[in-house]
């Protein structure tokens, strides 16, 4: 990459210094002054034209010289690119597993745009999809013999309901992040109190607590050290906190207790609650997570995670592709990638169970089974070991019966 940068800098310098155009201009000047001379005195024509030959020729030569230099620079830069990408060709494109799933990809993109708050782009995108769909439909009407199999199904596109949901999520987040206005978020969490409680979410309380802290800090964006506007905070607490009941009693007591330290909150045991610089980020993250979860969606854009994981995985997969080509073999199993791809820990969502006996990953057809001793193996291994009767656990002295083992869910 350094080499590419260096060669490109050099190329730019060369282009800046290039005299090509200047030489063209000086040729024009030569011709023009000759023309003026001849026009003024036709008798000078022969001499002037004879004198003109060499200068014009040499100016063309210098145009070509400067072109040659540019050409050299371009070549060197191209070579540096070749070198950079030499062992890293783009993956071969013989088999594009996703090419006939265009509508699903477009749906994922539309959802991604909505999630990111790109509402106008999303709207344009959906209308362009609809336009293209209708032209394809028109064409297939004029040619009824053809089956409209590749048509986009409009139902696949995010519904108006989803769009509305994301619009309101974005509005709430915008108010929260940009204007430090927690009220829309609090309102939303109250509307969904039951669903949130079932998830074990503390969102509503977290939002109210932040509101309390914010009022205490006199609605200032940064925590202040001076005694805050405790009257407003107390009033808010009296009005709102009672509804939370016993579940958050300890927390509420803490918040009220802090009032005793108004003079020196920073030195008090409550400093962490009141001077938490990341409180707003944390709250908006947990709001996004809860909001998306209630819609059955992951908190971060799946499209983003998948594309990023894909680029991380590509070098390994490409290496694999070359090896397989050299050995003229195919993927051993269709269901599972043949190599392990290490991703950052935050990209692991599910627990993974690999049977210690067969080294296979558990599936619905071959689920993990726990023996009474607490050791877990895959069902197929269990069947093989026990032959349907009593057997010894491969990992401890315990003996048990096939039917004593229980299916577990990771």
């Amino acid at each position, binding site marked *: 990459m350094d080499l590419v940068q260096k060669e490109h800098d050099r190329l730019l310098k060369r282009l800046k210094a290039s005299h090509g155009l200047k030489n063209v201009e000086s040729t024009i000047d030569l011709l023009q002054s000759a023309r003026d001379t001849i026009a003024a005195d036709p008798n000078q024509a022969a001499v002037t034209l004879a004198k003109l030959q060499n200068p*014009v020729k040499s100016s063309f030569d210098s145009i070509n010289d400067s072109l040659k230099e540019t050409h050299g620079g371009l070549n060197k830069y191209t070579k540096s690119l070749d070198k950079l990408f030499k062992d890293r060709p783009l993956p071969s494109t013989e088999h594009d597993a996703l090419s006939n799933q265009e509508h699903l990809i477009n749906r994922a993109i539309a959802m991604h745009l909505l999630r990111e708050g790109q509402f106008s782009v999303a709207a*344009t995108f959906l209308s362009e999809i609809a336009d293209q769909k209708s032209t394809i439909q028109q064409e297939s009407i004029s040619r009824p013999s053809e089956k409209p199999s590749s048509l986009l199904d409009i139902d696949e596109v995010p519904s108006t309901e989803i769009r509305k949901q994301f619009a309101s999520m974005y509005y709430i987040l915008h108010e929260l992040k940009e204007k430090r206005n927690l009220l829309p978020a609090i309102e939303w969490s109250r509307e969904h109190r039951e669903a949130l409680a079932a998830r074990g979410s503390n969102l509503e309380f977290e939002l109210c607590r932040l509101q309390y802290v914010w009022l205490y800090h006199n609605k200032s964006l940064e925590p202040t050290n001076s005694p805050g506007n405790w009257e407003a905070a107390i009033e808010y607490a009296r009005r709102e906190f009672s509804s939370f009941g016993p579940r958050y009693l300890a927390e509420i007591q803490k918040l009220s207790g802090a009032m005793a330290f108004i003079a020196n909150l920073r030195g008090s045991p409550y400093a962490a609650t009141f001077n938490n610089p990341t409180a707003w980020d944390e709250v908006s993250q947990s709001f996004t997570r809860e909001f998306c979860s209630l819609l059955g969606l992951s908190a971060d854009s799946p499209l983003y995670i998948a594309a990023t994981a894909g*680029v991380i995985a590509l070098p390994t997969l490409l290496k694999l592709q070359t090896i397989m080509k050299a050995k003229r073999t195919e993927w051993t199993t269709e269901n599972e990638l043949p*190599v392990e791809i290490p991703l950052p820990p935050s990209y692991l969502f*599910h627990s993974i169970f690999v049977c210690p006996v067969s080294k296979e990953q558990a599936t619905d057809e071959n689920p993990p089974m726990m023996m009474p001793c607490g050791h877990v193996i895959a069902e197929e291994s269990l069947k093989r070991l026990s032959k349907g009767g009593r057997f010894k656990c491969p990992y401890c002295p315990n003996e048990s019966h096939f039917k004593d083992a229980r299916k577990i869910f990771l």
Partner: protein
Amino acid sequence: MAAELTSIKLNPESHIILDQPLLRLPNDLARRNFKSVQRSVEREKEYVIPALKEAANASLSNTQTPDQTLAALDAMLSRMQGLKRKMQSLQEEERRIQNQSRKRIQHLEALHKIPSLADVKYDQWSRVRLDRLLVDHMLRSGYSESAKQLAQERDIEELVDLGVFTQCQRIVECLRQGETKEALQWCGENKAALKKSQHNLEFELRLQQYIELVRSRDQTKKIEAIAHAKRYLVTNQETQNKEIMRAAGMLVITPDTRAEPYKTLFSTDRWKYLSDLFIKTHHELLSLPSQPLLHIALSAGLSALKTPLCHSAYTSSSSNSASTATSVCPICSTELNDLARKMPYAHHSKSYVEGDSIVLPNGRVYSKSRLLDISRQVGSVEDGKVKDPTTGEAFLESEMKKVYIL
């Protein structure tokens, strides 16, 4: 067997596999731009120098009136002025391309300053990359307006190739509507480069023009068709002999024929074939990959993330939307779930569970400490009980059983 389960190592050099076209395309454009400067200079040189010599000779031998000499000089001047204008505009273009290249190099360079995949800066960089991939996908699918808007809103216009794809799309539109002019003009502009192409786009276009003339079944049109064939098709006899023979055969066949290959030749589907051929030729010429980069990234990513649990009939205990204890897996999320259905799942050679795993009487496995945490948070279960966050069932703490996953 790979030793690491997870890794946050960032290798910037191998991380830019997908970014090849980002630097290649402007470089190809710059080279083409340079070639047209070179050609123009060469052309004017070949005109001006002999013309000047001739004028000098003529004026020496007095075979030319002064007016004629002036006229000859004026002709040279106007050609040089033309060259100057052309060079100016090409230089402008060159500057634009190289500026773009510079910004793109800087964008890739930024990756070298990011310490690891877990860094916030990587997240930002990767989001820009996703936006680039999305614009690329939109442009290739013909959603030009969406692409333009997204590029503008994300301020990545220098990192995407709106112009190149929009031009390509325009020609494709024309072909789909049965218009060959634009595509032929493009062939003319890229004549030299197209000589290396395996696809004989220009021949196919000329053949289509011929087919359209024959289709009308009008006698004068047929004569025109024969003239067209002589001029444009027969010149390719060495390579396209079979096609030329077939074309000749079409003269005596009616367009509603059911006999192959004439049926295919007369079919309006040929326009679709031509537009696909154009896209293929166009992308190859500019060393653009034939499939959207997003497809490459996604098919790798879906597999790398997918687990057998993502399409399981049972709700996964470790990732579901029923409780705050877990975050929803992107493959399980509605956006990608169907898309990932046919992909292979990731290979793992080792189990990956939290250290303090316990199993509940219903068979669900959780981290003990986390389960206790959530149960306390929820507050809705009595003391000494835990709540299964997935099913909502409550169990006695003593019913939690240690599970050994090796």
